[in-house]
C-alpha cells in the first residue's frame, strides 16, 4: 500500500517536473536574462524578443509564457524539490537507514537524469550566486536564531579553536599533502601548481552546516558534542571563505610576487574579515533588538523585520567583503534573547516557523540540486589518484586535527571531551554545498583544472553526506556516544540552576580566581545594567527573569492542557468558564497545589465549581498572577484579530453568523455556515417546541416557574454576564470591570453565548416561549453531546428544577457572594457539592 502510494507520488512528481523542462526545451526565449532567478534556465537562452503579433481582434485569452517563465520555473522547481522531500519521508524504514540528505541527493540524480534526457545538456544546476544569496542565508539565520545560546557561548572557546585553527590546519595539510603526492607522481600529469593545491585545500576544509544539521538532527548526540560540531561548522565557513579568498588572490598574483608582505597582508585580512563580519553581525543584532522595541503597533510584520534585517546583515557583510556567514550567525545568536523578549509571543512563534519553513525548504533544494548538478558531462574529469587521495587526506587530517586540538582543550576543560565524542566529531566533518559553491566559482582562466576540482568536490560531498551520513547512526550507537537527555522544563531545575551558578561564582570568589563563572557573572551584571536597558522595552525587562519565564511557560502549557482536556471532555463547565478564562487558568493552578491531585488536570472540567471556590479556600483573593492575566488581557483587547481563543470554541460551537456584526465575522476565516449545523439546530428547536407544547398541554405550570430561575443563570452565564448584579466579585474591582467590560461588549461575548440566547428565539422575556426554558440545558450542549442518550442524563434537571444539578449552577454565585468564607465554610460547600458532581460526571462520560 505504502509502495503504491509512493509510486503514485513519484509519478506525480515526474509529471510536475517534466513540465518545466519540456517547456524550457521548447520555448527558448528568455526575456530577462539579467535576473538571478533565470540561472536555472540560462542555458537555453537565445535572445530573440517576442514580437507582438498585430492584433486583428480582441483576444480573450493569450498564452503568455514568456512573462512568467522565470518565476514559474523557480516555483516549479521549488515544488519539485519539496515533493522529493515528501517522497523521501514517505517510507520511514528507508529514512531510518539513509539520512534524508542522502536520499535527496539521490533524487537529484534522477531529476538530473531526466533533464539530461530531455535537453541533452545540463540545463539546470546549482549556481553559486543562487546558493550564496538565496539559499544559504536563511539556513544560517535559522540555525543561529535557534541556537542554544548558553551552550554556544560557554563552549565558544572550543568552537573557535576548532573553527579557526582546525580549519587552517585542514586547509594547509590537505593542500600540501596533495601537492606532495602530485610531485611524487601519484596523479599523473596535471596542470596544478602548489598554490592551486592550497586553494583547493581551502575550499575543501569547510565543514558544512547544512549537511551537519541534516545528519546530526537525526542522530541525537549529547548537546555538548552537537554544539561543538555544529558551532564549528557555522563559524568555520567564515574562515574557509577568508582562506579561499586569500589563496585565490595569491593564485592571481602568481607565485613569484608573493613575499612576506603579501603573506602578512593575508593574515591581517583574515582577522579583519572574520572579526569584521562578526562585529557587523553584532551591530545588526543591536539594530534588530532596538527596532523590535518599537514595533508593537505593526505586530503583523514584526517577524518580517528580523528576517529582512538578518538578510541585510548578510548582504552588507558581503558588500564590505567581510564574512557574510559569520555576520548573519552572530546577528541571529545575539539578538535572539532580546527579540524574543520584546516581541509578542505570536510573533516569536511566527518567526520561528517562518524561518524553519524557509531553512528546511532551501536545505531540501540545496541537496536536490547537488544531485542534479552531478549529471553533467562537462564537469567530469576523472583522475583516480587525485580523487582518492583527496578523500583520504580530508578524513585523515580531520581526525588528526580534531584529536590534537581536543587534547589541548581537554587540559583546560572542566569536563573533558572524551574519546568517543572526539571520534564522532572527526567523523562528523561533512562537506557540503559551501565547498561546492566555492569550487563552482573558481575561475577557469586561472585554474585550468577547475573541472577536476569541481568534480572531486562533488564526489567528496557525496561521499561525506551519503556514506558518512548513513554510517553515522550505527557508528554512534556502536561507540555508545552519550545521547542527548530530554529533560522537561521544571521550575526546580531552573531555580536550582540559578542557585548552582551563584554558588559556583561564590566559590570562585572565595578561592580568589577568575574562572569561567567570573566572566559569566560579570557579563550578566553588565547585561542587566546596560544591555537590557538599551535593547529591551520596559515591559519585556520587567518580565525578563529566567525563573519567571519558566513559570510562565509552564503556565501556558497548563492552560493549553486545560483547554484540550476540556475540549475532549466537551463539558459544559469548560465552555461556561471560557468567558473568564484568564482567571480560571490561574485558579486552576492555585487549585493544583491546593489539595487536589495533579491528575486532576484531566478531570478539570468537572470541577469547575471547585475552581471557583479555590481562591477563597487558599485565601488568594486578589492575586491573579500577572503573566497569564496580562496575556489574556492582551488577547481580549485584540479579540477580533485573535483567532486563537475563539478558534477552539468555534470548532465546537454553532455559529450564528446572521447575528454577528460584519466587522466581527470578517476577521474570522471560517465564515461559511455549516448546513449540518443548521439542520441540527433546527431539529432541536423543533423538538423543544414540541416538548414545550406537550408540557403546556399537560399543564405543568409550577415547574415552569421554578425552572425560570436556573434558566436565567444558566443562560446568562455563558454570555459573560455571570449574574452581574447580585454577584460580588471575589477577584477584586479590577476584575469586576474586566468582566463587566466583556459582558457589555458583545464582540467579546463571542458566538457561543449568542447561540444559546438567540437560537431559542430570544424568548427569555417572552412568556410564550417560557417552556423552552426547560430545554435550555440540552440546548447548551455542544454538538458532541447530542446523542439521544444524553437527554436522559439531563432529564432530571428538567423535571425537577431544584435538583442538585440545578443547584450546581447557583453554587458558585452564592459561594462567591460570601467571598470572605472561612475554610470551614468552603469545605462544607465542597461537601454539599459532592453528590452534585455525579450527574455532571455522568453527563460527560456518556
Amino acid at each position: 500500500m505504502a509502495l503504491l502510494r509512493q509510486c503514485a507520488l513519484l509519478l506525480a512528481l515526474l509529471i510536475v517536473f517534466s513540465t518545466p523542462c519540456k517547456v524550457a526545451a521548447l520555448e527558448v526565449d528568455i526575456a530577462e536574462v539579467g535576473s538571478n532567478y533565470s540561472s536555472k534556465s540560462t542555458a537555453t537562452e537565445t535572445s530573440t524578443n517576442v514580437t507582438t503579433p498585430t492584433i486583428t481582434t480582441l483576444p480573450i485569452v493569450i498564452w503568455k509564457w514568456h512573462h512568467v517563465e522565470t518565476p514559474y520555473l523557480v516555483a516549479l522547481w521549488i515544488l519539485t524539490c519539496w515533493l522529493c522531500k515528501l517522497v523521501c519521508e514517505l517510507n520511514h524504514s528507508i529514512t531510518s537507514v539513509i539520512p534524508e540528505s542522502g536520499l535527496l541527493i539521490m533524487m537529484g540524480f534522477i531529476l538530473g537524469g531526466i533533464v539530461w534526457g530531455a535537453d541533452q545538456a545540463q540545463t539546470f544546476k546549482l549556481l553559486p550566486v543562487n546558493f550564496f544569496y538565496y539559499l544559504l542565508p536563511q539556513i544560517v539565520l535559522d540555525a543561529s536564531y535557534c541556537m542554544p545560546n548558553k551552550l554556544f557561548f560557554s563552549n565558544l572557546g572550543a568552537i573557535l579553536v576548532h573553527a579557526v585553527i582546525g580549519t587552517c590546519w585542514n586547509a594547509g595539510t590537505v593542500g600540501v599533502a596533495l601537492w606532495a603526492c602530485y610531485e611524487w607522481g601519484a596523479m599523473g600529469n596535471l596542470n596544478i601548481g602548489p598554490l592551486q593545491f592550497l586553494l583547493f585545500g581551502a575550499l575543501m576544509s569547510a565543514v558544512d552546516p547544512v549537511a551537519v544539521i541534516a545528519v546530526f538532527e537525526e542522530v541525537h548526540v549529547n548537546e555538548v558534542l552537537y554544539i561543538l560540531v555544529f558551532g564549528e561548522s557555522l563559524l568555520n565557513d567564515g574562515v574557509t571563505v577568508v582562506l579561499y579568498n586569500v589563496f585565490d588572490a595569491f593564485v592571481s598574483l602568481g607565485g613569484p610576487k608573493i613575499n612576506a608582505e603579501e603573506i602578512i597582508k593575508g593574515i591581517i585580512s583574515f582577522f579583519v574579515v572574520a572579526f569584521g563580519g562578526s562585529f557587523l553581525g553584532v551591530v545588526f543584532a543591536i539594530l534588530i533588538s532596538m527596532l523590535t522595541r518599537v514595533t508593537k503597533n505593526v505586530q503583523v510584520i514584526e517577524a518580517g523585520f528580523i528576517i529582512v534585517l538578518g538578510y541585510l546583515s548578510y548582504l552588507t557583510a558581503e558588500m564590505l567583503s567581510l564574512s557574510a556567514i559569520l555576520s548573519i550567525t552572530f546577528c541571529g545568536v545575539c539578538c535572539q534573547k532580546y527579540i524574543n523578549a520584546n516581541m509578542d509571543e505570536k510573533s516569536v512563534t511566527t518567526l520561528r516557523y517562518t524561518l524553519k519553513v524557509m531553512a528546511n525548504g532551501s536545505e531540501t533544494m540545496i541537496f536536490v540540486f547537488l544531485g542534479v548538478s552531478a549529471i553533467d558531462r562537462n564537469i567530469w574529469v576523472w583522475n583516480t589518484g587525485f580523487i582518492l587521495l583527496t578523500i583520504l587526506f580530508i578524513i585523515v587530517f580531520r581526525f588528526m586535527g580534531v584529536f590534537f586540538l581536543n587534547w589541548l582543550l581537554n587540559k583546560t576543560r572542566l569536563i573533558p571531551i572524551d574519546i568517543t565524542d572526539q571520534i564522532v566529531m572527526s567523523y562528523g566533518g561533512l562537506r557540503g554545498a559551501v565547498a561546492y559553491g566555492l569550487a563552482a566559482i573558481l575561475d577557469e582562466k586561472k585554474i585550468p583544472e577547475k573541472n577536476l576540482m569541481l568534480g572531486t568536490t562533488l564526489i567528496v560531498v557525496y561521499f561525506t553526506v551519503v556514506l558518512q551520513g548513513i554510517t553515522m547512526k550505527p557508528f554512534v550507537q556502536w561507540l555508545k556516544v552519550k545521547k542527548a537527555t530530554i529533560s522537561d522544563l521544571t521550575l526546580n531545575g531552573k531555580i536550582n540552576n540559578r542557585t548552582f551558578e551563584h554558588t559556583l561564582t561564590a566559590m570562585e570568589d572565595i578561592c580568589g580566581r577568575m574562572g569561567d563563572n567570573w566572566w559569566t557573572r560579570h557579563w550578566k551584571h553588565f547585561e542587566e545594567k546596560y544591555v537590557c536597558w538599551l535593547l529591551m522595552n520596559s515591559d519585556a525587562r520587567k518580565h525578563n527573569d529566567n525563573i519567571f519565564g519558566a513559570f510562565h511557560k509552564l503556565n501556558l502549557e497548563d492552560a493549553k492542557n486545560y483547554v484540550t482536556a476540556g475540549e475532549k471532555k466537551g463539558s459544559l463547565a469548560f465552555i461556561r468558564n471560557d468567558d473568564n478564562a484568564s482567571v480560571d487558568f490561574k485558579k486552576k493552578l492555585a487549585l493544583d497545589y491546593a489539595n487536589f491531585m495533579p491528575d486532576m488536570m484531566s478531570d478539570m472540567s468537572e470541577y469547575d465549581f471547585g475552581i471557583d471556590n479555590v481562591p477563597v479556600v487558599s485565601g488568594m483573593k486578589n492575586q491573579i498572577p500577572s503573566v497569564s492575566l496580562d496575556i489574556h488581557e492582551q488577547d481580549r483587547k485584540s479579540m477580533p484579530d485573535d483567532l486563537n481563543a475563539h478558534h477552539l470554541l468555534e470548532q465546537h460551537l454553532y455559529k450564528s453568523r446572521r447575528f454577528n456584526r460584519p466587522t466581527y465575522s470578517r476577521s474570522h476565516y471560517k465564515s461559511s455556515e455549516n448546513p449540518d449545523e443548521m439542520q441540527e439546530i433546527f431539529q432541536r428547536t423543533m423538538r423543544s417546541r414540541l416538548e414545550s407544547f406537550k408540557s403546556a398541554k399537560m399543564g405543568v405550570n409550577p415547574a415552569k416557574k421554578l425552572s425560570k430561575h436556573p434558566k436565567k443563570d444558566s443562560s446568562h452565564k455563558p454570555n459573560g454576564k455571570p449574574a452581574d448584579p447580585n454577584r460580588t466579585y471575589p477577584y477584586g474591582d479590577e476584575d469586576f470591570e474586566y468582566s463587566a467590560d466583556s459582558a457589555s461588549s458583545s464582540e467579546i461575548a463571542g458566538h457561543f453565548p449568542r447561540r444559546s440566547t438567540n437560537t431559542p428565539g430570544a424568548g427569555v422575556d417572552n412568556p410564550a416561549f417560557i417552556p423552552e426554558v426547560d430545554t435550555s440545558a440540552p440546548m447548551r450542549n455542544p454538538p458532541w453531546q447530542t446523542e439521544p442518550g444524553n437527554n436522559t442524563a439531563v432529564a432530571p434537571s428538567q423535571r425537577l428544577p431544584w435538583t442538585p444539578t440545578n443547584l450546581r449552577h447557583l453554587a458558585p454565585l452564592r459561594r462567591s457572594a460570601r467571598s470572605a468564607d472561612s475554610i470551614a465554610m468552603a469545605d462544607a460547600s465542597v461537601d454539599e457539592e459532592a453528590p452534585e458532581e455525579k450527574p455532571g460526571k455522568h453527563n460527560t462520560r456518556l
Partner: protein
Amino acid sequence: MGSRASSLLREEDIEEIKKETGFSHSQITRLYSRFHSLDKGENGALSREDFQRIPELAINPLGDRIINAFFPEGEDQVNFRGFMRTLAHFRPVEDNEKNKVLTPGEPLNSRINKLLFAFRLYDLDRDDKISREELLQVLRMMVGVNISDEQLGSIADRTIQEADTNGDMCISFNEFTKVLEKVDVEQKMSIRFLH
C-alpha cells in the same frame, strides 16, 4: 607568599587533607595561601567577617547563605580543614584512576554531596525539609524586584508541588534529588581548581 604560607602548613596536615578531600598537594598549598590571605585575624581560622570582606560575595545574592555553609552548626570559626572540606564539594568528578578513594563512604565531591550542599542552602532550620517559607526566602534573594510577592508565592507553590511527592508541602532531600535527577549536577556544581 605562597612559600611562606605553605611552610605554615605541616606535611601531615597536607596528607590528611589530601586523603579527605582529594585535592592535590599543589592545590592544597595554593588554597592555603588564599586562606591565609583571607585570614585577617591571623589566628588560623576564618570568621564570617573574613568572608564578608570578599567584595564579590557582597553582590552575590546567595552570598550570606554560602558563607554560612562553611560554618558547622553553632560555630563561627572555620579552620583550614573545614574550609577545604567545603571546597572539596566543588571538585569536578574525575576519572576513576585518580580517585583512589581512601576515605570510607562517599567522597565529598560525589553527586549526593553536591546536592546536599545545594539543599542546605535552602534548608535554614536544618530539618531536612525545604518549606515554602524557606524556598520563598531564597527566591526573594534571587529574583528581581519586578516580580511581586504574589507571583513569587505562586512560583514557590508550584515549585514545591512539582517536587513534592508525599504531599506534605515541603521538599525533602529525597524529593530534591529525585526532581533533579536529570540535571547534570556533577558538571553544574563543579569548578576548576588550578593544579
